[in-house]
């Protein structure tokens, strides 16, 4: 450690730190614009100039390394003179249009400028005018205000992993822009808005929504992916106006994915459910709560009486809160049905009853950033887990080897050390090859559960490369993504991946499908013995369904089957925040409050329980789900529905013990087996990032992004030629139903496969996510 002195105050810092970091340690603020703790140092704004004794010129605090016995003055005459000069330069070409600027009130330039006073400008020449850029549906630009700090550019290069923005031209003509007016398509793009210290990049959806001082800021937790990003929700007149990151180094750091940031717009979608409704003679009628609940009690009672409790099935969204999931499963179990599931997109349930605990990430989220090696198996990493991908990107930048075994070679914007890309039916075999290679390289024996799978497998160079990469350094992890979890042979993939992790001395875990996947498992939102899982409930249709926050045609592994099952049911009780197509198959709609309007908890991928309160009151007659379920339990005469608060529900759901002790990825007595070779074209289906849950699906700005574009049938050129189809031609795809989509050459898709996104209106009719498809020219 070194000791230096800042404004007379002594501070100890590690060698190699900068004066800025030293100042921050003692809470001393040095004005700055280009400096940002998560980005590389640019030292270009020159705002942070300070005096250092014995140095002839003022030096930038952000870039000047500390040296023993350095004496720094941040407010001396020399320092302030320099800072004033820089401030004056920054303002000469600035429009000074604070009253009409969306950044007004939270503008670093404004804040610092005010501090330097200055009064009348000495600049009397003409000001530079910069044309605004079109950057897409999320980011609004006013480039005359840009101060060229280059934060947005560095963000793209370093954090998002893609240089969509750059600064073209030079000198005073230098301008932040995207290549010939392309939109910014990164799933992390909104962070550039936060990073921009002035009002050059602002939120398009928020534009002119409010002045920042009118906004009340409330903490919350993102209900989307399994990260559980911490949110600062900004509210005006009981309405959510904007969402910003709430910094949490352990989780989202200072970032948000665009989905976390912009999905709030969906809260006010046209089909937002605000009144209970009952369908009567095919017509919907708004009713009061009493009437609606009476109807539900009566219907469930009737069905139970007539067909037995087993005729009732419950599909629960893993985006629901822990409290809702707990009470929902308790209620259905109270009715004596075991048909309860939240694993809606899974296909393989053969591991049920053999788990030794609740599946989770296997290591703390923050540890992803400091791994030395990671093997990601079966994942659409970048879009399914934008900020986990970001952490792995940082690990790679620091020297980690990232490798993957996957069904598609999509671009994660992380340089990979090795990979095996194989069709879905070859994934298990590919893992077996990696396992065999590891056994070869480490001289260890493969466990009995995997021996059959490994027997006779040929170990190729690619598998060896993956194995070697995974052995890099000390901190290693094997991570299973959504494609693996939703695979028809998921349990084999898990057994093999876990064994790979064991031989490599790596942690093993699941990236996690949804905000509360871990919480749902903890809450018991799965069938126990004798119950039907999500797939079985649809395969063997029930008489009545209870839906919690689910849009089955989007959220289930086979949307077509789901819809059919619901259409035939005598009763569908829909608890949700939106109407959607429930209008067609449900007979009663119960408006429950979305995450912004209820208290609740999510347990994220790393097993962290995060509770939150409502940030606004429920819209209309909507009610927090937990309250509604509690009342319903009472009305049904079930015991144990007396909880006074969501905290009480949470306590009951989690029991006494430490949550962490429940987390375990073990499988007892499951044998890995390889898949039978597929006969036809195999479908590879991702869930597009902005279609993964009902809220995101309804966010207008997100729906205008490239990520929400109509899916195409992506096919390897060899396969495409074999089909006699040209790139860009429209094809008819047939699964259980059929759709027409544009076919696109994609060398990242294995031969014999068709990559078609699920959960999108344009491809819904295809049916199962994992299936064989036929493709022909339309």
């Amino acid at each position: 450690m070194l000791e230096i002195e800042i404004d007379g105050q002594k501070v100890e810092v590690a060698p190699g730190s900068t004066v800025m970091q030293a100042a921050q340690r003692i809470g001393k603020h040095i004005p700055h614009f280009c400096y940002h703790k998560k980005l590389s140092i640019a030292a270009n704004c020159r705002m942070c100039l300070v005096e250092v004794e014995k140095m002839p010129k003022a030096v930038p605090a952000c870039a000047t390394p500390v040296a023993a016995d350095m004496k720094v003055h941040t407010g001396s005459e020399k320092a302030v003179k320099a800072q004033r000069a820089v401030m004056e330069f920054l303002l000469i070409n600035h429009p000074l249009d604070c009253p009409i600027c969306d950044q007004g009130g939270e503008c670093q330039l404004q804040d610092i400028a005010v501090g330097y006073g200055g009064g009348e400008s000495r600049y009397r020449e003409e000001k530079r005018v910069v044309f605004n850029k079109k950057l897409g549906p999320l980011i609004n630009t006013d480039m005359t205000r840009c101060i060229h700090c280059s934060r947005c550019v560095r963000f793209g290069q370093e954090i998002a992993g893609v240089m969509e923005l750059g600064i073209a031209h030079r000198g005073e003509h230098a301008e932040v822009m995207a290549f010939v007016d392309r939109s910014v398509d990164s799933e992390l793009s909104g962070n550039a808005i936060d990073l921009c210290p002035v009002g050059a990049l602002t939120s398009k959806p928020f534009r002119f929504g409010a002045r920042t001082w009118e906004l009340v800021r409330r903490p919350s937790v993102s209900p989307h992916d399994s990260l559980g990003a911490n949110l600062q929700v900004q509210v005006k007149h009981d309405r959510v106006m904007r969402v910003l990151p709430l910094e949490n180094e352990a989780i989202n750091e200072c970032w948000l994915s665009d989905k976390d940031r912009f999905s709030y717009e969906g809260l006010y979608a046209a089909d937002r459910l605000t009144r209970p409704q009952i369908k009567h003679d095919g017509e919907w009628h708004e009713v009061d709560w009493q009437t609606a609940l009476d109807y539900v009690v009566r219907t469930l009672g009737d069905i139970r009486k007539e067909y037995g409790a087993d005729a009732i099935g419950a599909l629960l969204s893993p985006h629901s809160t822990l409290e809702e999931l707990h009470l929902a499963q308790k209620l259905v179990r109270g009715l004596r049905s075991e048909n309860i599931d939240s694993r809606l997109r899974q296909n393989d349930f053969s591991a049920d009853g053999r788990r030794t605990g609740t599946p989770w990430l296997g290591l703390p989220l923050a540890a992803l950033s400091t791994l030395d090696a990671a093997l990601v198996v079966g994942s659409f990493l970048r879009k399914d887990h934008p900020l986990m991908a970001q952490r792995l990107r940082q690990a790679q930048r620091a020297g980690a080897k990232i490798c993957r075994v996957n069904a598609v070679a999509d671009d994660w914007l992380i340089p990979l050390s090795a990979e095996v890309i194989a069709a879905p039916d070859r994934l298990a075999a590919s893992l077996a090859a990696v396992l065999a290679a590891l056994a070869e390289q480490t001289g260890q024996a493969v466990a009995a559960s995997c021996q059959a799978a490994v027997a006779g497998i040929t170990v190729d160079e690619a598998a060896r490369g993956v194995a070697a990469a995974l052995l890099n350094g000390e901190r290693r992890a094997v991570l299973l993504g959504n494609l693996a979890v939703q695979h028809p042979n998921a349990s084999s993939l898990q057994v093999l991946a876990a064994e790979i992790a064991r031989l490599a001395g790596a942690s093993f875990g699941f990236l996690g499908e949804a905000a509360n996947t871990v919480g749902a498992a903890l809450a018991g939102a799965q069938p126990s013995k004798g119950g039907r899982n999500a797939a079985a409930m649809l395969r063997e249709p029930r008489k009545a369904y209870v839906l919690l926050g689910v849009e089955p045609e989007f959220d289930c592994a086979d949307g077509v089957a789901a819809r059919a099952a619901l259409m035939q049911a005598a009763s569908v009780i829909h608890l949700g925040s939106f109407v959607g197509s429930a209008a067609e198959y449900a007979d009663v709609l119960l408006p429950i409050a979305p995450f912004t309007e209820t208290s609740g908890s999510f347990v994220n991928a790393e097993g962290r329980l995060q509770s939150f309160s409502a940030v606004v009151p429920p819209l209309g007659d909507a009610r927090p789900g937990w309250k509604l379920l509690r009342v319903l339990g009472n009305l049904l005469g079930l015991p144990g529905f007396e909880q006074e608060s969501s905290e009480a529900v949470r306590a009951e759901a989690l029991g006494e013990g430490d949550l962490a002790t429940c987390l375990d990825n073990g499988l007892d007595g499951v044998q890995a087996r390889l898949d039978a070779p597929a006969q036809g074209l195999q479908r590879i289906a991702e869930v597009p990032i902005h279609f993964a849950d009902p809220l995101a699906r309804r966010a207008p700005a997100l729906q205008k992004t490239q990520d929400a574009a109509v899916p195409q049938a992506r096919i390897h050129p060899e396969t495409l030629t074999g089909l006699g189809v040209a790139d860009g031609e429209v094809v008819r795809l047939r699964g259980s139903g059929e759709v027409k989509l544009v076919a696109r050459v994609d060398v990242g898709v294995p031969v014999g496969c068709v990559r078609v996104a699920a959960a999108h209106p344009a491809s819904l009719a295809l049916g199962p996510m994992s299936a064989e498809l036929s493709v022909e020219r339309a």
Partner: protein
Amino acid sequence: MLSPQSLLLIDREVAKYPADQKQSAVMAALRIAQAEKRWLAPETIEFVAKYLGMPTMAAYEVASFYNMYDLQPVGAHKITVCTNLPCALSGGSEAAEYLKTKLGIDFNETTPDGRFTLKEGECMGACGDAPVLLHNNHKMCCRMTREEIDGLIEELSK
């Protein structure tokens, strides 16, 4: 997009740098592309970027940073005159004025027949030979009296 000859030239440039530093060849590659296409259209820049495995925007930054790349179409003969102080003292500005009158265009304009584009240049490192002009970036014409300029324009008009 680019001719095999151009690609061959680019490959030769790439070979100058360490294998993981292909981007170092971008200036040469853009120069070669421009020599073939006369100017750098966005597609050309994108092609070069892809060829070198670098972000398109990074290639665009480079193309827009350096003066000798043309991001707008130019005439068959681009003539850049140095008017910086040392040259101006020995007739650089007068030569520029003469060219403007002779070609009937101002700086950054192209003659209607598309033959000539005139540009104002900065110091070319040849101040002792003022007036100096650069023809199509690569040929420096020194000590350009009015007669020399007449001769050059005549030659290039053929």
